[in-house]
């Protein structure tokens, strides 16, 4: 799976979770850039990403990911399809 595909699929997940079709994520996107992305929505987001890519984040990763770029690298290393 290449980076472009990951970001396209992440876009769809983000748009779905935050109910906003205008969202387009980049490696530099952080929670500050998306209004509804708070600690509670982060839980919903993480489960949605895990479902989409059929993978699991490790506990430490959930709180330590600095931006969507870091999320994408973890997905690239671990996604099953």
């Amino acid at each position, binding site marked *: 799976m290449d980076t472009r595909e990951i970001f396209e699929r992440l876009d769809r997940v983000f748009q779905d979770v935050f109910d906003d079709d205008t969202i387009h994520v980049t490696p530099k996107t952080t929670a500050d850039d998306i209004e*509804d992305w708070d600690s509670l929505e982060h839980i919903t987001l993480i489960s949605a990403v895990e479902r989409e890519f059929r993978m699991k984040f490790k506990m430490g990763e959930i709180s330590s990911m600095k931006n969507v770029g870091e999320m994408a690298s973890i997905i690239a290393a671990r996604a099953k399809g």
Partner: protein
Amino acid sequence: MVFADLFFIYVFLPLCLICYGLAKKLSTKNIVLIVFSLIFYAWGEPLWILLLLFSSFFNWFIGILIGKFRDTPRAKLAVGGGILVDILLLLIFKYSAFIVENLNAVSGAAIPVPQITLPIGISFYTFQAISYILDCYWETVDVQPKYHKFLLYLSLFPQLIAGPIVRYSVVEQEIDNRSVNATDLCEGALRVILGLAKKVIIANNLWSIVNTFFGKDITGLSVLGTWYTIIVYSLYVYFDFSGYSDIAIGLGRMFGFHFDENFRHPFACTTIAEFWQRWHISLGSFFRDYLLYVPFFGKPRKYFGLFLVWFCTGLWHGAAWNFILWGLYYGCFMLFEQKMGKKRMKKWPIVWKHVYTKLVIILGFGIFYFENLGQLGQFFLNITGISMIANSAPFTDPMTFSSLRNNIFLILFAILVSLPVLPKIKSYFLESKNDTVYAIGRVGSVAVCMVLLAVVSVLLVDTTNNVFLYFRF
């Protein structure tokens, strides 16, 4: 030992800085800091220092075990056992009396209530220790192989007693690699003085107002008097605790450590969620990372997690029902805002947003203040005017007016400083491209701090009790 004390400011701190400066190697500097930190703690807690030493050794050892048994079930056992013992120590030393009292009340038994004085700072350093072992287990930090370096992290006197709850990852690199230049020393000292001024000049004076009105039975206290005092109390808690955090962050800086900010002008918030992103940030982020995101029955549970976090936030503040109530009260508003949605709340008029948040926060501090539930009920009867309608309390009283008249400048000044005004003035001067304006800013900030230090010192000569509110947590 407390920060707002002439002995600390003029003897302990200078002595520590001199020894620190004289030490050539960083490893010696670290030893100096450990020795001074232990003296600092033992000054007020000659016995409980043993508990601090035990907790630090135990958690360091758990870290070693996690590293040794990495990726085996034994690592899970080590981290689980570690957290269990940490929580057990907290339960014994902080909550045993509360638990026994409630057990007695429910069952009618007469178990003797343990009389344990709270070891100062236990809530803070235990949370730091838990964050460390979990971080080791989740591999977000490296296991610290040297005990004395872990002891330095846990016992570092600037943050030992009342936070911020510094994460190991924040100081991990700086334990082995840090330097202090003239700017660090100067900026750190200015921050310490600012924190002392917040505590000694503002918070202490606000506290005497609170004590005049709330220091006795509040039955019969007027509606306006109750509102006035709880607003003053809200300001007091902010100045007391954020002043302490300023001192902690400033002291850390003077020794080359860069702690994260713990307060970012919380009263400027427009939602309750934002309030908690600005108030006691290190506690909120602790519960977010180590409780909210932790899976229960297979995965993180959003709403279960939310109320668990707020229950624990309340309980963390003290072993009494009002604190639990206070936590859950915030949990309800968090849920309300979550259901309302940020987008919809953003459309509210700005005045309404401020009225809503300030009302919630101020009434919340009422719950926070009254550990006696009878008095808490009376507080709500007074503040809502029900007491007045029932003819048991007046709308206003002369004492409130005279107190307001005498303290109006202090209160207005406190409100002004609690909003992001000072940083704006600071950045106007210090980010100016005009050399004269910049120079005025530099010299001015030092001059203001010197005056503040002089005032603080004079005020401290006459006061004997300067314990910070958060010492009891």
